[in-house]
Protein backbone atom coordinates (compact mmCIF):
# COMPACT_ATOMS: atom_id res chain seq x y z
CA UNK A 1 0.00 0.00 0.00
CA UNK A 2 2.81 2.36 0.87
CA UNK A 3 4.37 2.26 -2.56
CA UNK A 4 1.11 2.99 -4.22
CA UNK A 5 0.39 5.98 -2.02
CA UNK A 6 3.72 7.51 -2.86
CA UNK A 7 3.02 7.34 -6.57
CA UNK A 8 0.42 10.09 -6.38
CA UNK A 9 3.27 12.59 -6.45
CA UNK A 10 5.58 10.98 -8.98
CA UNK A 11 8.78 13.04 -8.61
CA UNK A 12 9.27 11.74 -5.09
CA UNK A 13 9.77 8.04 -5.84
CA UNK A 14 11.82 8.91 -8.88
CA UNK A 15 14.16 11.00 -6.82
CA UNK A 16 14.34 8.15 -4.36
CA UNK A 17 15.15 5.74 -7.13
CA UNK A 18 17.84 8.02 -8.43
CA UNK A 19 16.26 8.39 -11.88
CA UNK A 20 16.56 11.22 -14.34
CA UNK A 21 15.04 14.27 -12.67
CA UNK A 22 13.79 15.71 -15.97
CA UNK A 23 10.98 13.20 -16.38
CA UNK A 24 7.56 14.78 -16.52
CA UNK A 25 4.31 12.87 -16.62
CA UNK A 26 2.38 13.36 -19.86
CA UNK A 27 -0.59 11.55 -18.38
CA UNK A 28 -1.58 10.60 -14.91
CA UNK A 29 -4.44 8.58 -13.48
CA UNK A 30 -5.88 9.20 -10.05
CA UNK A 31 -8.07 6.55 -8.52
CA UNK A 32 -9.18 5.36 -11.95
CA UNK A 33 -11.73 2.53 -11.74
CA UNK A 34 -13.68 0.78 -14.47
CA UNK A 35 -16.91 -1.09 -13.78
CA UNK A 36 -18.79 -3.46 -16.05
CA UNK A 37 -22.29 -3.20 -14.70
CA UNK A 38 -21.74 -3.93 -11.01
CA UNK A 39 -18.55 -5.88 -11.54
CA UNK A 40 -15.32 -4.01 -11.08
CA UNK A 41 -12.83 -4.42 -13.96
CA UNK A 42 -10.13 -2.12 -12.66
CA UNK A 43 -9.99 -0.69 -9.15
CA UNK A 44 -8.65 2.71 -8.24
CA UNK A 45 -5.42 2.85 -10.24
CA UNK A 46 -3.11 5.76 -9.65
CA UNK A 47 -0.05 5.97 -11.85
CA UNK A 48 1.95 8.38 -14.01
CA UNK A 49 2.77 7.97 -17.68
CA UNK A 50 6.02 9.74 -18.41
CA UNK A 51 6.64 11.81 -21.49
CA UNK A 52 8.64 10.15 -24.26
CA UNK A 53 8.99 6.95 -22.29
CA UNK A 54 7.58 3.52 -22.93
CA UNK A 55 5.34 2.34 -20.13
CA UNK A 56 4.48 -1.35 -20.14
CA UNK A 57 1.46 -2.84 -18.40
CA UNK A 58 1.94 -6.49 -17.55
CA UNK A 59 0.04 -9.12 -15.64
CA UNK A 60 -1.80 -12.40 -16.13
CA UNK A 61 -4.73 -12.46 -18.55
CA UNK A 62 -7.90 -11.03 -17.11
CA UNK A 63 -5.94 -8.80 -14.74
CA UNK A 64 -7.45 -5.61 -16.12
CA UNK A 65 -4.44 -4.20 -17.96
CA UNK A 66 -6.30 -3.86 -21.26
CA UNK A 67 -9.35 -2.49 -19.45
CA UNK A 68 -7.13 0.15 -17.87
CA UNK A 69 -5.49 0.98 -21.19
CA UNK A 70 -8.85 1.50 -22.87
CA UNK A 71 -9.86 3.86 -20.09
CA UNK A 72 -6.97 6.12 -21.07
CA UNK A 73 -8.63 7.25 -24.32
CA UNK A 74 -12.25 6.80 -23.34
CA UNK A 75 -12.78 3.66 -25.42
CA UNK A 76 -15.14 2.44 -22.72
CA UNK A 77 -17.60 5.12 -23.83
CA UNK A 78 -18.45 2.68 -26.63
CA UNK A 79 -19.50 -0.08 -24.24
CA UNK A 80 -22.91 0.80 -22.81
CA UNK A 81 -22.49 -1.17 -19.57
CA UNK A 82 -18.98 0.12 -18.80
CA UNK A 83 -18.55 2.97 -16.32
CA UNK A 84 -15.37 4.83 -15.41
CA UNK A 85 -14.68 6.57 -12.12
CA UNK A 86 -11.71 8.62 -11.01
CA UNK A 87 -9.49 10.81 -13.14
CA UNK A 88 -7.24 10.40 -16.14
CA UNK A 89 -5.30 13.55 -16.64
CA UNK A 90 -3.75 14.63 -19.91
CA UNK A 91 -1.79 17.89 -19.90
CA UNK A 92 -3.38 18.96 -16.66
CA UNK A 93 -6.95 18.25 -17.72
CA UNK A 94 -9.10 15.31 -16.66
CA UNK A 95 -10.32 13.66 -19.85
CA UNK A 96 -13.45 12.52 -18.02
CA UNK A 97 -14.54 16.04 -17.15
CA UNK A 98 -18.02 16.62 -18.51
CA UNK A 99 -17.84 18.61 -21.69
CA UNK A 100 -14.58 17.08 -22.85
CA UNK A 101 -15.16 15.57 -26.26
CA UNK A 102 -13.96 11.94 -26.44
CA UNK A 103 -13.40 12.42 -30.17
CA UNK A 104 -10.79 15.09 -29.46
CA UNK A 105 -9.26 12.94 -26.71
CA UNK A 106 -8.87 9.98 -29.04
CA UNK A 107 -7.18 12.23 -31.58
CA UNK A 108 -4.59 13.18 -28.97
CA UNK A 109 -4.27 9.65 -27.60
CA UNK A 110 -3.92 7.21 -30.46
CA UNK A 111 -4.38 3.49 -30.28
CA UNK A 112 -2.96 0.35 -31.88
CA UNK A 113 -4.87 -2.87 -31.42
CA UNK A 114 -4.15 -6.55 -30.87
CA UNK A 115 -5.01 -7.52 -34.41
CA UNK A 116 -4.00 -5.31 -37.31
CA UNK A 117 -7.17 -3.59 -38.52
CA UNK A 118 -6.52 -1.49 -41.60
CA UNK A 119 -9.63 -0.11 -43.28
CA UNK A 120 -10.48 -2.80 -45.82
CA UNK A 121 -11.43 -0.65 -48.78
CA UNK A 122 -8.63 1.89 -48.48
CA UNK A 123 -5.18 1.90 -50.05
CA UNK A 124 -2.01 2.01 -47.97
CA UNK A 125 -1.77 5.74 -48.53
CA UNK A 126 -5.42 6.40 -47.73
CA UNK A 127 -5.21 4.31 -44.58
CA UNK A 128 -2.35 6.45 -43.31
CA UNK A 129 -3.98 9.79 -44.06
CA UNK A 130 -7.50 8.72 -43.02
CA UNK A 131 -7.24 10.51 -39.68
CA UNK A 132 -5.86 13.68 -41.24
CA UNK A 133 -8.68 13.76 -43.75
CA UNK A 134 -11.13 13.59 -40.87
CA UNK A 135 -9.44 16.64 -39.43
CA UNK A 136 -10.14 18.50 -42.63
CA UNK A 137 -6.66 18.40 -44.09
CA UNK A 138 -7.21 18.31 -47.83
CA UNK A 139 -4.02 19.71 -49.29
CA UNK A 140 -2.21 16.99 -51.19
CA UNK A 141 1.28 18.21 -50.35
CA UNK A 142 0.49 18.18 -46.62
CA UNK A 143 -1.03 14.71 -46.84
CA UNK A 144 1.86 13.37 -48.89
CA UNK A 145 4.34 14.75 -46.46
CA UNK A 146 2.48 13.36 -43.45
CA UNK A 147 2.11 9.95 -45.10
CA UNK A 148 5.82 9.70 -45.79
CA UNK A 149 6.75 10.93 -42.31
CA UNK A 150 4.41 8.47 -40.58
CA UNK A 151 5.43 5.56 -42.76
CA UNK A 152 9.10 6.34 -42.13
CA UNK A 153 8.44 6.57 -38.40
CA UNK A 154 6.74 3.19 -38.47
CA UNK A 155 9.62 1.76 -40.54
CA UNK A 156 7.34 0.78 -43.38
CA UNK A 157 8.25 3.42 -45.93
CA UNK A 158 10.95 1.50 -47.75
CA UNK A 159 8.72 -1.53 -48.14
CA UNK A 160 5.67 0.29 -49.51
CA UNK A 161 6.87 3.52 -51.12
CA UNK A 162 6.44 2.05 -54.60
CA UNK A 163 2.93 0.78 -54.03
CA UNK A 164 1.18 3.34 -51.89
CA UNK A 165 -2.00 2.85 -53.94
CA UNK A 166 -2.19 -0.88 -53.23
CA UNK A 167 -4.92 -1.98 -50.81
CA UNK A 168 -3.89 -1.89 -47.15
CA UNK A 169 -5.16 -5.45 -46.82
CA UNK A 170 -2.59 -6.65 -49.39
CA UNK A 171 0.24 -6.27 -46.86
CA UNK A 172 1.48 -9.05 -44.59
CA UNK A 173 0.30 -9.18 -40.98
CA UNK A 174 3.38 -7.48 -39.58
CA UNK A 175 3.29 -4.82 -42.28
CA UNK A 176 -0.42 -4.26 -41.60
CA UNK A 177 0.34 -3.66 -37.94
CA UNK A 178 3.04 -1.14 -38.84
CA UNK A 179 0.54 0.45 -41.23
CA UNK A 180 -1.87 0.79 -38.29
CA UNK A 181 0.92 2.39 -36.27
CA UNK A 182 1.60 4.80 -39.12
CA UNK A 183 -2.11 5.55 -39.31
CA UNK A 184 -2.16 6.38 -35.61
CA UNK A 185 1.02 8.49 -35.87
CA UNK A 186 -0.22 10.53 -38.81
CA UNK A 187 -2.50 12.64 -36.63
CA UNK A 188 0.48 13.37 -34.36
CA UNK A 189 -0.92 12.03 -31.10
CA UNK A 190 0.68 12.92 -27.80
CA UNK A 191 0.27 9.41 -26.43
CA UNK A 192 0.13 6.10 -28.28
CA UNK A 193 -1.68 3.23 -26.58
CA UNK A 194 -0.70 -0.23 -27.82
CA UNK A 195 -2.87 -3.17 -26.82
CA UNK A 196 -0.73 -6.31 -27.20
CA UNK A 197 0.37 -5.08 -30.63
CA UNK A 198 2.52 -8.11 -31.41
CA UNK A 199 0.36 -10.92 -30.05
CA UNK A 200 -0.98 -11.77 -33.52
CA UNK A 201 2.41 -11.51 -35.24
CA UNK A 202 5.31 -13.80 -36.06
CA UNK A 203 8.67 -13.36 -34.24
CA UNK A 204 10.31 -11.37 -37.04
CA UNK A 205 7.46 -8.88 -37.24
CA UNK A 206 7.43 -8.70 -33.46
CA UNK A 207 11.13 -7.84 -33.50
CA UNK A 208 10.49 -5.10 -36.07
CA UNK A 209 7.77 -3.53 -33.95
CA UNK A 210 9.83 -3.73 -30.77
CA UNK A 211 12.73 -2.00 -32.53
CA UNK A 212 10.29 0.58 -33.73
CA UNK A 213 9.11 1.45 -30.24
CA UNK A 214 12.53 2.46 -29.04
CA UNK A 215 12.87 4.97 -31.87
CA UNK A 216 9.25 6.07 -31.74
CA UNK A 217 9.38 7.21 -28.15
CA UNK A 218 11.37 10.24 -29.26
CA UNK A 219 8.18 11.52 -30.86
CA UNK A 220 5.43 10.10 -28.74
CA UNK A 221 4.69 8.74 -25.29
CA UNK A 222 3.92 5.04 -25.47
CA UNK A 223 1.85 2.79 -23.23
CA UNK A 224 1.96 -0.86 -24.19
CA UNK A 225 -0.05 -3.74 -22.80
CA UNK A 226 1.77 -7.01 -23.19
CA UNK A 227 1.34 -10.54 -21.94
CA UNK A 228 4.99 -11.13 -22.65
CA UNK A 229 7.31 -10.20 -19.76
CA UNK A 230 10.45 -10.39 -21.89
CA UNK A 231 8.90 -7.89 -24.25
CA UNK A 232 8.15 -5.53 -21.39
CA UNK A 233 11.71 -5.89 -20.16
CA UNK A 234 13.12 -5.27 -23.65
CA UNK A 235 11.12 -2.24 -24.72
CA UNK A 236 9.83 -0.38 -21.68
CA UNK A 237 11.25 2.23 -19.37
CA UNK A 238 8.54 1.86 -16.76
CA UNK A 239 6.37 -1.09 -15.92
CA UNK A 240 3.12 -1.49 -14.06
CA UNK A 241 2.13 -4.92 -12.79
CA UNK A 242 -1.61 -5.59 -12.64
CA UNK A 243 -3.33 -8.38 -10.75
CA UNK A 244 -7.09 -8.89 -10.46
CA UNK A 245 -7.87 -5.35 -11.49
CA UNK A 246 -5.38 -3.76 -9.17
CA UNK A 247 -2.07 -2.02 -9.86
CA UNK A 248 0.22 -4.03 -7.59
CA UNK A 249 3.46 -2.30 -8.36
CA UNK A 250 4.76 0.43 -10.62
CA UNK A 251 8.33 1.52 -11.18
CA UNK A 252 11.26 1.74 -13.54
CA UNK A 253 11.40 -1.44 -15.54
CA UNK A 254 14.84 -2.59 -14.48
CA UNK A 255 14.03 -2.00 -10.81
CA UNK A 256 10.72 -3.82 -11.06
CA UNK A 257 12.26 -6.79 -12.77
CA UNK A 258 15.40 -7.02 -10.63
CA UNK A 259 14.17 -5.88 -7.25
CA UNK A 260 10.40 -6.08 -7.01
CA UNK A 261 9.02 -4.74 -3.77
CA UNK A 262 5.82 -6.68 -3.71
CA UNK A 263 6.03 -10.46 -3.24
CA UNK A 264 3.19 -10.87 -5.77
CA UNK A 265 5.23 -9.09 -8.40
CA UNK A 266 8.18 -11.25 -7.61
CA UNK A 267 6.07 -14.36 -7.88
CA UNK A 268 4.89 -13.30 -11.31
CA UNK A 269 8.20 -12.23 -12.80
CA UNK A 270 10.02 -15.27 -11.52
CA UNK A 271 7.40 -17.34 -13.31
CA UNK A 272 5.80 -18.91 -10.28
CA UNK A 273 2.37 -18.25 -11.79
CA UNK A 274 0.60 -16.38 -14.60
Amino acid at each position, binding site marked *: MEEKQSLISPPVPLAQLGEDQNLKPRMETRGLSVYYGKKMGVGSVTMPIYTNQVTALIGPSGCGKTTFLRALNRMHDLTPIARVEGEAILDGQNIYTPGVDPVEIRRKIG*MVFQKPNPFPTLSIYDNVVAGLKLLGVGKKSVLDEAAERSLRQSALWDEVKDRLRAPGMSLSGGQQQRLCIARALAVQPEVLLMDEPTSALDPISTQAIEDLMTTLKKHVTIVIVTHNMQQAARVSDFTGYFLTGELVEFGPTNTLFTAPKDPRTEAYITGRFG
Partner: protein
Amino acid sequence: MATVRTQSRPSTSPLYRAFGDRLFAGLVLLLCLLIIGIVLLIGWQLGWNGARAFEVFGIVGFLSSTAWNPVTDVYGAWPFILGTLITSLLALALAFFPALAVAIFATEYAPRWLGNVLSYALELLASLPSVIYGLWGLSVLVPALRGVQQSLFLWASDHAQWLLPVLGNPIGIGLSAAVMVLAVMVIPYTASLAKDSIALVPAVQREAAYGLGATKWEVIRMAVVPYARGGILAGVILGLTRALGETMAVVLVIGNNKNLPFTLFGPATTIPSAIVNEFGEAQGLQLSSLLALGFILFLISGVLNLLAAWIVKRMSVDGRL
Protein backbone atom coordinates in the same frame (compact mmCIF):
# COMPACT_ATOMS: atom_id res chain seq x y z
CA MET B 1 -19.15 -53.22 -29.18
CA ALA B 2 -21.62 -52.98 -32.02
CA THR B 3 -22.09 -56.73 -32.04
CA VAL B 4 -22.85 -56.73 -28.34
CA ARG B 5 -25.50 -54.11 -28.90
CA THR B 6 -27.10 -55.93 -31.79
CA GLN B 7 -27.31 -59.08 -29.74
CA SER B 8 -29.04 -57.32 -26.89
CA ARG B 9 -31.38 -55.53 -29.30
CA PRO B 10 -32.92 -57.78 -31.86
CA SER B 11 -34.58 -54.86 -33.67
CA THR B 12 -31.21 -53.51 -34.83
CA SER B 13 -30.29 -56.45 -36.97
CA PRO B 14 -27.77 -55.65 -39.71
CA LEU B 15 -30.48 -56.15 -42.30
CA TYR B 16 -32.84 -53.72 -40.58
CA ARG B 17 -30.03 -51.25 -40.21
CA ALA B 18 -28.40 -51.45 -43.62
CA PHE B 19 -31.63 -51.83 -45.54
CA GLY B 20 -33.38 -49.08 -43.56
CA ASP B 21 -30.49 -46.70 -43.95
CA ARG B 22 -30.24 -47.32 -47.64
CA LEU B 23 -33.98 -46.99 -48.14
CA PHE B 24 -34.18 -43.78 -46.15
CA ALA B 25 -31.16 -42.18 -47.82
CA GLY B 26 -32.47 -43.27 -51.19
CA LEU B 27 -35.86 -41.75 -50.53
CA VAL B 28 -34.37 -38.48 -49.35
CA LEU B 29 -32.06 -38.40 -52.35
CA LEU B 30 -34.93 -39.14 -54.71
CA LEU B 31 -36.95 -36.23 -53.35
CA CYS B 32 -33.95 -33.92 -53.62
CA LEU B 33 -33.35 -35.00 -57.20
CA LEU B 34 -37.02 -34.24 -57.77
CA ILE B 35 -36.48 -30.67 -56.54
CA ILE B 36 -33.50 -30.30 -58.86
CA GLY B 37 -35.46 -31.84 -61.71
CA ILE B 38 -38.40 -29.50 -61.20
CA VAL B 39 -36.22 -26.40 -61.35
CA LEU B 40 -34.47 -27.65 -64.47
CA LEU B 41 -37.88 -28.47 -65.91
CA ILE B 42 -39.07 -24.92 -65.23
CA GLY B 43 -36.12 -23.51 -67.15
CA TRP B 44 -36.56 -26.08 -69.90
CA GLN B 45 -40.30 -25.47 -70.25
CA LEU B 46 -39.87 -21.72 -70.53
CA GLY B 47 -36.86 -21.97 -72.83
CA TRP B 48 -38.16 -24.75 -75.07
CA ASN B 49 -41.66 -23.39 -75.44
CA GLY B 50 -40.44 -19.85 -75.79
CA ALA B 51 -37.85 -20.85 -78.37
CA ARG B 52 -40.38 -20.54 -81.18
CA ALA B 53 -40.65 -16.81 -80.58
CA PHE B 54 -36.88 -16.51 -80.84
CA GLU B 55 -36.88 -18.66 -83.98
CA VAL B 56 -39.55 -16.65 -85.75
CA PHE B 57 -38.36 -13.18 -84.83
CA GLY B 58 -34.69 -13.87 -84.19
CA ILE B 59 -33.13 -13.38 -80.79
CA VAL B 60 -32.12 -9.79 -81.38
CA GLY B 61 -35.31 -9.12 -83.28
CA PHE B 62 -37.51 -10.41 -80.49
CA LEU B 63 -35.57 -8.62 -77.79
CA SER B 64 -35.46 -5.28 -79.56
CA SER B 65 -38.82 -5.11 -81.30
CA THR B 66 -41.53 -2.89 -79.87
CA ALA B 67 -44.36 -4.52 -81.78
CA TRP B 68 -46.88 -6.64 -79.87
CA ASN B 69 -49.88 -7.37 -81.98
CA PRO B 70 -51.94 -10.56 -81.63
CA VAL B 71 -53.94 -9.66 -84.75
CA THR B 72 -50.92 -9.64 -87.05
CA ASP B 73 -49.17 -12.19 -84.81
CA VAL B 74 -46.04 -10.07 -84.43
CA TYR B 75 -44.33 -9.89 -81.05
CA GLY B 76 -41.43 -8.07 -79.53
CA ALA B 77 -40.14 -7.96 -75.97
CA TRP B 78 -38.52 -4.56 -75.74
CA PRO B 79 -41.32 -2.54 -74.03
CA PHE B 80 -41.66 -5.22 -71.36
CA ILE B 81 -37.95 -5.57 -70.75
CA LEU B 82 -37.60 -1.80 -70.64
CA GLY B 83 -40.55 -1.41 -68.28
CA THR B 84 -39.26 -4.14 -65.98
CA LEU B 85 -35.81 -2.59 -65.85
CA ILE B 86 -37.05 0.97 -65.36
CA THR B 87 -39.51 0.13 -62.59
CA SER B 88 -37.09 -2.16 -60.77
CA LEU B 89 -34.10 0.14 -60.96
CA LEU B 90 -36.07 3.23 -59.99
CA ALA B 91 -37.63 1.33 -57.10
CA LEU B 92 -34.20 0.24 -55.97
CA ALA B 93 -32.85 3.77 -56.24
CA LEU B 94 -35.77 4.99 -54.15
CA ALA B 95 -35.39 2.18 -51.62
CA PHE B 96 -31.61 2.16 -51.23
CA PHE B 97 -31.00 5.05 -48.88
CA PRO B 98 -33.94 4.44 -46.54
CA ALA B 99 -33.00 0.75 -46.41
CA LEU B 100 -29.38 1.57 -45.57
CA ALA B 101 -30.52 4.18 -43.07
CA VAL B 102 -32.76 1.78 -41.17
CA ALA B 103 -30.05 -0.90 -41.24
CA ILE B 104 -27.47 1.50 -39.80
CA PHE B 105 -29.86 3.03 -37.31
CA ALA B 106 -31.09 -0.34 -36.04
CA THR B 107 -27.60 -1.76 -35.52
CA GLU B 108 -25.48 1.27 -34.58
CA TYR B 109 -27.76 3.71 -32.79
CA ALA B 110 -30.99 2.15 -31.60
CA PRO B 111 -31.22 0.65 -28.13
CA ARG B 112 -31.65 -3.11 -28.23
CA TRP B 113 -35.43 -3.08 -27.84
CA LEU B 114 -35.88 -0.57 -30.65
CA GLY B 115 -33.50 -2.52 -32.86
CA ASN B 116 -35.64 -5.60 -32.27
CA VAL B 117 -38.79 -3.67 -33.08
CA LEU B 118 -37.27 -2.44 -36.32
CA SER B 119 -36.11 -5.95 -37.24
CA TYR B 120 -39.57 -7.26 -36.65
CA ALA B 121 -41.08 -4.44 -38.71
CA LEU B 122 -38.79 -5.33 -41.60
CA GLU B 123 -39.70 -8.99 -41.28
CA LEU B 124 -43.39 -8.10 -41.43
CA LEU B 125 -42.90 -5.80 -44.41
CA ALA B 126 -41.18 -8.67 -46.21
CA SER B 127 -43.82 -11.24 -45.39
CA LEU B 128 -46.99 -9.31 -46.18
CA PRO B 129 -48.54 -10.80 -49.33
CA SER B 130 -47.74 -8.74 -52.39
CA VAL B 131 -51.36 -8.62 -53.46
CA ILE B 132 -52.10 -6.64 -50.28
CA TYR B 133 -49.51 -4.07 -51.34
CA GLY B 134 -51.28 -3.97 -54.68
CA LEU B 135 -54.66 -3.43 -53.03
CA TRP B 136 -53.21 -0.68 -50.85
CA GLY B 137 -51.45 0.87 -53.81
CA LEU B 138 -54.61 0.93 -55.87
CA SER B 139 -57.00 2.22 -53.23
CA VAL B 140 -54.78 4.46 -51.08
CA LEU B 141 -51.55 5.35 -52.85
CA VAL B 142 -52.90 5.95 -56.36
CA PRO B 143 -55.57 8.51 -55.36
CA ALA B 144 -53.05 10.35 -53.20
CA LEU B 145 -50.45 10.23 -55.94
CA ARG B 146 -52.95 11.52 -58.48
CA GLY B 147 -53.36 14.75 -56.50
CA VAL B 148 -49.62 15.28 -56.27
CA GLN B 149 -49.11 14.47 -59.92
CA GLN B 150 -51.84 16.85 -61.02
CA SER B 151 -50.42 19.79 -59.13
CA LEU B 152 -46.96 19.00 -60.48
CA PHE B 153 -48.41 18.75 -63.94
CA LEU B 154 -50.20 22.10 -63.63
CA TRP B 155 -47.04 23.72 -62.33
CA ALA B 156 -45.04 22.29 -65.21
CA SER B 157 -47.54 23.42 -67.81
CA ASP B 158 -47.11 26.98 -66.54
CA HIS B 159 -43.41 27.04 -65.89
CA ALA B 160 -41.67 24.18 -67.66
CA GLN B 161 -43.49 23.04 -70.76
CA TRP B 162 -40.58 20.84 -71.79
CA LEU B 163 -41.21 18.66 -68.73
CA LEU B 164 -44.70 17.65 -69.80
CA PRO B 165 -43.71 14.85 -72.20
CA VAL B 166 -41.50 13.40 -69.49
CA LEU B 167 -44.20 13.57 -66.86
CA GLY B 168 -47.05 12.13 -68.91
CA ASN B 169 -50.66 11.77 -67.86
CA PRO B 170 -51.22 12.55 -64.18
CA ILE B 171 -53.81 9.84 -63.59
CA GLY B 172 -52.24 8.21 -60.55
CA ILE B 173 -52.08 4.74 -62.03
CA GLY B 174 -48.80 4.25 -63.86
CA LEU B 175 -45.06 3.98 -63.65
CA SER B 176 -44.51 6.14 -60.57
CA ALA B 177 -47.19 4.29 -58.58
CA ALA B 178 -45.58 0.96 -59.48
CA VAL B 179 -42.15 2.26 -58.55
CA MET B 180 -43.33 3.45 -55.15
CA VAL B 181 -45.13 0.21 -54.30
CA LEU B 182 -42.08 -1.77 -55.44
CA ALA B 183 -39.76 0.41 -53.38
CA VAL B 184 -41.77 -0.36 -50.25
CA MET B 185 -41.58 -4.07 -51.06
CA VAL B 186 -37.86 -4.02 -51.83
CA ILE B 187 -36.77 -2.15 -48.70
CA PRO B 188 -37.04 -5.04 -46.21
CA TYR B 189 -34.95 -7.35 -48.39
CA THR B 190 -32.16 -4.84 -48.87
CA ALA B 191 -32.34 -3.60 -45.28
CA SER B 192 -32.27 -7.04 -43.60
CA LEU B 193 -29.17 -8.19 -45.43
CA ALA B 194 -27.46 -4.86 -44.87
CA LYS B 195 -28.40 -5.04 -41.20
CA ASP B 196 -27.03 -8.58 -40.85
CA SER B 197 -23.74 -7.71 -42.49
CA ILE B 198 -23.34 -4.51 -40.45
CA ALA B 199 -23.88 -6.55 -37.30
CA LEU B 200 -21.02 -8.79 -38.46
CA VAL B 201 -18.52 -5.92 -38.64
CA PRO B 202 -15.92 -6.75 -35.96
CA ALA B 203 -15.44 -4.36 -33.07
CA VAL B 204 -11.78 -3.84 -33.98
CA GLN B 205 -12.86 -2.21 -37.24
CA ARG B 206 -14.99 0.32 -35.42
CA GLU B 207 -12.28 0.86 -32.82
CA ALA B 208 -9.71 1.51 -35.52
CA ALA B 209 -11.72 4.53 -36.57
CA TYR B 210 -12.68 5.59 -33.06
CA GLY B 211 -9.02 5.37 -32.07
CA LEU B 212 -8.17 7.91 -34.77
CA GLY B 213 -10.59 10.35 -33.25
CA ALA B 214 -13.53 9.75 -35.57
CA THR B 215 -17.05 10.77 -34.67
CA LYS B 216 -19.72 8.09 -34.70
CA TRP B 217 -20.87 8.93 -38.20
CA GLU B 218 -17.27 8.99 -39.41
CA VAL B 219 -16.77 5.54 -37.92
CA ILE B 220 -19.80 4.30 -39.86
CA ARG B 221 -18.61 5.92 -43.06
CA MET B 222 -14.95 4.87 -42.76
CA ALA B 223 -15.12 1.49 -41.11
CA VAL B 224 -18.61 0.02 -40.89
CA VAL B 225 -20.15 0.56 -44.31
CA PRO B 226 -16.98 -0.29 -46.27
CA TYR B 227 -16.56 -3.47 -44.27
CA ALA B 228 -20.20 -4.48 -44.76
CA ARG B 229 -20.30 -3.57 -48.44
CA GLY B 230 -20.61 -7.19 -49.59
CA GLY B 231 -23.78 -7.77 -47.62
CA ILE B 232 -25.19 -4.42 -48.64
CA LEU B 233 -24.56 -5.30 -52.28
CA ALA B 234 -26.15 -8.72 -51.83
CA GLY B 235 -29.19 -7.03 -50.31
CA VAL B 236 -29.44 -4.69 -53.27
CA ILE B 237 -29.26 -7.61 -55.69
CA LEU B 238 -31.88 -9.60 -53.80
CA GLY B 239 -34.09 -6.53 -53.72
CA LEU B 240 -33.63 -6.22 -57.44
CA THR B 241 -34.69 -9.83 -58.06
CA ARG B 242 -37.78 -9.30 -55.97
CA ALA B 243 -38.66 -6.14 -57.88
CA LEU B 244 -38.07 -7.80 -61.27
CA GLY B 245 -40.39 -10.72 -60.55
CA GLU B 246 -43.03 -8.89 -58.57
CA THR B 247 -46.35 -9.45 -60.23
CA MET B 248 -49.70 -8.71 -58.63
CA ALA B 249 -48.79 -5.49 -56.84
CA VAL B 250 -47.39 -4.07 -60.06
CA VAL B 251 -50.18 -5.34 -62.32
CA LEU B 252 -52.74 -3.57 -60.16
CA VAL B 253 -51.12 -0.13 -60.25
CA ILE B 254 -49.00 0.16 -63.40
CA GLY B 255 -51.80 0.61 -65.91
CA ASN B 256 -50.49 -1.99 -68.38
CA ASN B 257 -49.58 0.11 -71.38
CA LYS B 258 -47.02 -1.32 -73.79
CA ASN B 259 -46.81 1.70 -76.09
CA LEU B 260 -43.51 3.49 -75.86
CA PRO B 261 -42.35 5.96 -74.78
CA PHE B 262 -43.08 5.46 -71.12
CA THR B 263 -43.55 8.55 -69.01
CA LEU B 264 -42.95 9.16 -65.34
CA PHE B 265 -46.62 9.38 -64.36
CA GLY B 266 -48.27 7.55 -67.23
CA PRO B 267 -49.09 3.84 -67.51
CA ALA B 268 -46.37 1.37 -68.45
CA THR B 269 -45.86 -2.39 -68.33
CA THR B 270 -43.48 -5.07 -67.14
CA ILE B 271 -42.77 -8.67 -68.11
CA PRO B 272 -44.88 -10.13 -65.27
CA SER B 273 -47.81 -7.83 -65.96
CA ALA B 274 -47.68 -8.69 -69.66
CA ILE B 275 -47.79 -12.39 -68.83
CA VAL B 276 -50.72 -11.97 -66.44
CA ASN B 277 -52.67 -9.78 -68.82
CA GLU B 278 -52.18 -11.76 -71.99
CA PHE B 279 -51.86 -15.44 -71.17
CA GLY B 280 -55.64 -15.93 -70.97
CA GLU B 281 -56.32 -15.70 -74.66
CA ALA B 282 -52.79 -16.52 -75.76
CA GLN B 283 -52.12 -19.47 -78.03
CA GLY B 284 -49.49 -20.50 -80.51
CA LEU B 285 -46.92 -17.85 -81.23
CA GLN B 286 -48.35 -15.43 -78.68
CA LEU B 287 -48.06 -18.00 -75.91
CA SER B 288 -44.53 -18.79 -77.06
CA SER B 289 -43.67 -15.14 -76.90
CA LEU B 290 -45.06 -14.88 -73.36
CA LEU B 291 -43.08 -17.93 -72.33
CA ALA B 292 -40.02 -16.40 -73.95
CA LEU B 293 -40.61 -13.32 -71.81
CA GLY B 294 -40.82 -15.63 -68.82
CA PHE B 295 -37.56 -17.25 -69.88
CA ILE B 296 -35.84 -13.87 -69.99
CA LEU B 297 -37.11 -13.18 -66.49
CA PHE B 298 -35.96 -16.65 -65.40
CA LEU B 299 -32.45 -16.00 -66.68
CA ILE B 300 -32.14 -12.53 -65.16
CA SER B 301 -33.49 -13.49 -61.77
CA GLY B 302 -31.50 -16.73 -61.75
CA VAL B 303 -28.20 -15.00 -62.42
CA LEU B 304 -28.91 -12.25 -59.88
CA ASN B 305 -29.94 -14.76 -57.22
CA LEU B 306 -26.87 -16.89 -57.63
CA LEU B 307 -24.75 -13.76 -57.52
CA ALA B 308 -26.38 -12.64 -54.28
CA ALA B 309 -26.07 -16.12 -52.75
CA TRP B 310 -22.40 -16.21 -53.71
CA ILE B 311 -21.76 -12.85 -52.10
CA VAL B 312 -23.58 -13.85 -48.91
CA LYS B 313 -21.58 -17.08 -48.75
CA ARG B 314 -18.27 -15.27 -49.15
CA MET B 315 -19.39 -12.75 -46.58
CA SER B 316 -20.01 -15.45 -44.00
CA VAL B 317 -16.68 -17.15 -44.69
CA ASP B 318 -14.26 -14.30 -44.17
CA GLY B 319 -16.47 -11.45 -43.18
CA ARG B 320 -15.74 -9.34 -46.18
CA LEU B 321 -15.58 -9.28 -49.94
